């Protein structure tokens, strides 16, 4: 199972990729595997506010529905509408085509407090 080193993670199973003040957010391979076949995903609209630690959407698999919890605060800049039509991309390519939203972060330094790949992997192994 992959935990790319260039990403940061949260204990709510979000990964983030930083590009300036733009943060791309997705669901980790670990969470996608736990959930099983992802069948639907509910994402916010462009322009909506994301609040760090608060739900910004939901994701449903054949087993459960879970909150997607924002890793950072800011404004939702882009939404991956393709993943809404093809939620299986989250299972198949969670760090690529399965990306969920891009957030214009209000404070990029919030990312520094997130988990490294090694820390996330260690937590999930517990």
């Amino acid at each position, binding site marked *: 199972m992959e935990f790319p080193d260039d990403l940061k993670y949260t204990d709510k199973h979000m990964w983030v990729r930083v590009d300036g003040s733009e943060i791309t957010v997705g669901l980790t391979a670990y969470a996608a595997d736990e959930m099983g076949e992802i069948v639907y995903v509910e994402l916010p609209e462009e322009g909506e506010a994301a609040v760090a630690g608060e739900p910004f959407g939901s994701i449903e698999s*054949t*087993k459960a529905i879970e*909150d997607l919890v924002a890793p950072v605060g800011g404004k939702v800049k882009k939404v991956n509408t393709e993943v809404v039509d093809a939620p299986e991309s989250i299972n198949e390519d969670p760090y690529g085509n399965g990306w969920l939203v891009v957030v214009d972060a209000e404070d990029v330094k919030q990312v520094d407090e997130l988990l490294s790949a090694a820390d996330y992997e260690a937590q999930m192994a517990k």
Partner: protein
Amino acid sequence: MATRKPTWRLIRSGFADGFENMAIDEALMLSCAEGASPPTLRLYGWRPPGVSLGYFQPVDGQIDQEECARRGYTVVRRPTGGRAILHDDEVTYSVSVRQADLPGGAKLLSSYREISRGIEAALRRVGVAASPAAGETKSGSRVPPAACFARAARSDMTVDGRKIVGSAQARRHGAILQHGSIPLRVNVADVAAVMAPDSRAKAALGEAAVSVSDAAGRQVSFEELCKALVAGFEQGLGVTLVPGDLMDEERTVAARLCATKYGTDAWNLERPGARRGSHSAKSLAISS
């Protein structure tokens, strides 16, 4: 020195319609999330019979609404995931608990497994040897069937590969709501009639699912299965169940959810994505 077992609340709700059933389950999850309620096992039934849909499941092409109306069946959208279930001659269980209060609660599969221990022990008490499925049963299609019991996923409770409990979970605000349908008797023709026309899915139902009475080889009653679930959960989860009832605040929230959400066509007949602004966090807010 012996460790005291955790105490859970047991609520025997009796029979109510689908709208009230879902409203109470969500109220319990919200109350647990707030730390206001103890871990709770609730047992209940459906009167009249009704169909419940998964949170994101579309209605069109999945459910025959006209047939449901003809039969006087309610149609309600659950707060949990999964596929459609016809609730009729069954016991429904619901577990509401903070993730931190359930061993393995922080992870989806381990929380399912933990709750499965209670169900497995209960079914054993009525003479049914069930176990969690190791993997998905083959269905020949990646498109989920309309009916929950048409396919068993990993961790679903099965007997000889046939699904005997249809469970679904929601994980919100650090709490878990898991509820499930345990059919005492199944009339496959009734189930097929309320699902939208799809001969493949209907054909699969008879082979893919089994009722408790069929699996036990005798008629098991609602009361007997409820008693078995109480003893099974105590044994399987290592908890003490103390009979109780809804608190006033839970009752108030349930009534509000029934009136504004579960009793409305806007919630039941439309998928959440179709409604802008009705975001999950806002729609689950416990304070008005």
